[in-house]
């Protein structure tokens, strides 16, 4: 399996993601420069975290217009695996690959801390290796993670099982107290209808080994490889 990590100017989790992919999956990983127009031969694309183009306008708002994005949109539309982490999630929303938008955290401040995240669905290519309803710890680090969408879309997300990650209590309860940024229905990450595009605010790449945390983020990446293998 071959991974591509897109590098926008201002991406700053690109190297962490690259390292995590290598360390966890042992597969081939390459950087993809934002000025490329044609996408090489990849089996999975990651849009990493950061502040693409400085995020001076609105997180992800400029990156969606970068030269590489049309071919990534094509890749996603034809069923390719695309994972957006943090700023990458914001870019997926801005580019219409996922529904909804991000508002500033309700505290209006940047928040960096560990959160408890429940795996709502373990049937996606990004969560195969988790148990359903498993609660894991992941770091967040963002100022715009307050997910918002219209009531109809929100209902669809719920009905279709597109909500993949939710902020919860350590026991797995969906409670406002454990929601760090004010996102609707404690949403931490969602998928498109087909399930091949997923975006999430927490950083799985920052928790892939036991020296730094408990390593539970690693399964996001190992799931991708397992899904790819099963697909054959």
């Amino acid at each position: 399996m071959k991974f591509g990590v897109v590098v926008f100017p201002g991406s700053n989790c690109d190297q962490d993601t690259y390292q995590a992919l290598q360390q966890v999956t042992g597969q081939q990983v390459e950087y993809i420069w934002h000025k490329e127009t044609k996408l090489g031969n990849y089996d999975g694309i990651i849009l990493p975290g950061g502040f693409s183009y400085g995020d001076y306008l609105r997180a992800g708002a400029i990156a969606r217009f970068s030269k590489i994005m049309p071919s990534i949109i094509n890749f996603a539309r034809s069923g390719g695996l695309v994972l957006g982490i943090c700023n990458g999630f914001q870019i997926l929303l801005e580019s219409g690959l996922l529904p909804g938008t991000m508002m500033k955290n309700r505290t209006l401040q940047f928040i960096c801390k560990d959160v408890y995240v429940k795996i709502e669905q373990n049937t996606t290519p990004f969560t195969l290796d988790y148990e359903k309803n498993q609660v894991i710890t992941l770091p967040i680090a963002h100022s715009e993670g307050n997910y918002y969408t219209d009531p109809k879309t929100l209902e669809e997300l719920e009905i279709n099982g597109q909500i993949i990650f939710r902020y919860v209590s350590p026991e797995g309860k969906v409670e406002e107290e454990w929601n760090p940024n004010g996102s609707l229905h404690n949403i931490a990450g969602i998928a498109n209808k087909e399930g091949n595009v997923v975006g999430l605010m927490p950083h799985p790449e920052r928790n892939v080994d036991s020296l730094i945390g408990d390593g539970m983020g690693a399964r996001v990446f190992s799931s991708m490889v397992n899904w790819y293998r099963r697909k054959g």
Partner: protein
Amino acid sequence: MNFNEIKVTPEVIQAHGLSPEEYEKIKTLLGREPNITELGIFSVMWSEHCSYKSSRYWLKNLPTQGSRVLIGPGENAGVIDIGEGLAVVMKIESHNHPSFVEPYQGAATGVGGILRDIFTMGARPIAVLNSLRFGDLKNPKTRYLLGGVVAGIAGYGNPFGVPTVGGEVYFEPCYNGNPLVNVMAVGLLRQDRVQRGRAEGIGNPVIIVGSPTGRDGIHGAAFASRELSEKSLEDRPSVQIGDPFTEKKLLEACLELYESGYLVGIQDMGAAGLTCSTSEMAARAGTGIRIYLDQVPLRESGMTPYEIMLSESQERMLMVVKKGYENKAREIFEKWDLKFAVIGEVTGVEAPHQQPLLQVYLNGQIVAEIPISSLTSEAPLYQRPFVKPDYLKETANLDLEKILLPANPEEVFLTLLGSDNIRSKRPIYQQYDHTILANTILRPEEGDAAVLRIRRVGNRMEEEGVEERGDGKLKREKAIALTTDGNGRYCYLNPRRGVQIAVAEAARNLVCVGAEPIAITDGLNFGSPEQPEVMWQFVETIEGLKTACTTLGIPITGGNVSFYNETNGKAIYPTPIIGMLGLVEDVRYITGQSFKDPGDLIVLLGENKGEIGGSEYLKIIHQRVLGEGPSLDLQREKALQQACLKAIRSGLIKSAHDTSQGGLAICLAESCLTGRGREKNPYLPGISVELTDSLRWDFLLFGEDQTRIVVSLSSSNLEKLQEIAYSFQVPITILGKVTDSGIFQINDWIRLPISKLREVWTRKQ
């Protein structure tokens, strides 16, 4: 009118912060009157900020040598050998005055400036720490400054992509009109990639890269070399504006350039911008530099030579590349959409002085011509008079009999636990990204120092060269530990001892996480050196620093002096801040500060003396700033640290936390309250502690005696720990046990639920 025809009058000279004697010296060095541009250049290069004219004489006494020191003071940052072909680059800098005038941008550009110092040396920045001092939090202005400074540090460091992993913040009324914002940055590089700020090679092109030059920050260096007053707020245009996005691109482009081999020398443009970078790079190489200002990319038209030379626009670098490789270098910067302009060349000895010159041209006309040496080595050097301040007679007079014993120990304990200097700093550090780069092993409030894993480094992951195992990790996983420490109140009461405590505490903090202290960067913050009392504080500090570094065997690899920290003639407490680097040779033995398992023994290394001089207790409960601060015996301190480190490296210890502000009781409370994921189990742990020292309970619980570490361990390891303690002649006492009761109990003085402690410690104020 030609700008350079502006007359240099005594008023103009004074407005530039130059004394009549200094002006006479300029005339002698030039052999003529300077024009206005030259006067501007001299005024910034001879400012305290750039020339260290009041401190240079004393700084040379500091120990800067050591077997791990690859580059000491004099370059943009110190470089320290951490083995296996790797090195750490580190430095601390202040941005005090700008942060008072415009807290967000002042702090943000402080972060940006010190980060450039790090990647100028060839390293990728891997950590930032910040040491902040503010006035009384009851003062609304303090809240505004605190909010702005913290947001500014976050607003620059987070997008740039460097974790802000530690630091400290203290509130004291003496900083009401002059907060301190000291930022320490740390980078990692391969030893064979170290870059220098040297303009070598006559004929090589001189290049400016990064942001275009604008009118912002003109005279920032001179502004930083004056006291603050109400009028300072009118200096807001002296504060620069930061753009972390451009800096991030500049970092990546520079690191690519270092791999190319085209580079000769590089220096960031911080204080005094183009003036300082050209003259310092030339001075280090013994060359001259000729620049053409019409080639400098500008943000706006109509800028005068004076403005271009003095602009402190951020995110710019000056570099010299090998002749003929300009276009190769240009490609790298244009890939990252950054400005790149050849603005001049390196020169040799020039007439009329037959020495290296800084020559500045605009439209074919020479607008400034100054010998390089007159801007650098021949800058003024002062041995300013100093005298012991009178206030010390009063403060030294602490009559313990007059300190009334409070009625209720629990009340005193909770008051201290919830006080501004002691309670949790989560509301601050939560705004800093401290987990990016995925190397942060111990985060803020998890250990006495931040601990970061060291793994592969370099421009991009494809790079080879460092000794690695097959799986891409270093042969032996190791880590570094980082801390900043400094107690201004102790230094006010006894500067010599105060700075020694800062060094001892920083080293102790590193030892507590399992690291060996290996290098120091110092940020020295003082009032006006023209006041003999302040100068005395400075001289005492240098003497104390020298002794502490020598005794503990830790060299200083660079730092920063910030004078003129006073408002309307009232100086801040002398505030030396010690940034320290430690090395963890084996990541298995990293130790946090939180208690782990019920049944573990709680043991004190060191002894209780009940010293309350300069303590939080004395200030918060009795409203007194008296005494001399706790006593310190550096030899005993060294023995304690060696014993603790040996115990940790033998795998005996589960937690280690030194006693500092608030004393033993607060130290024990912190070990109960901190630790990752503690909220998962609100009942664990409790402690049951019996103290048997025959001291007043208030002195015993809250005295800030030095040279003490509280550790916890399984009872099966006690004997081995005792052996180590005896062999270093360190007193060792069993204080009690970690329990699962959820109750914090010390003798019959304090018996409170941990949940109550947590509520007070984390209460929003």
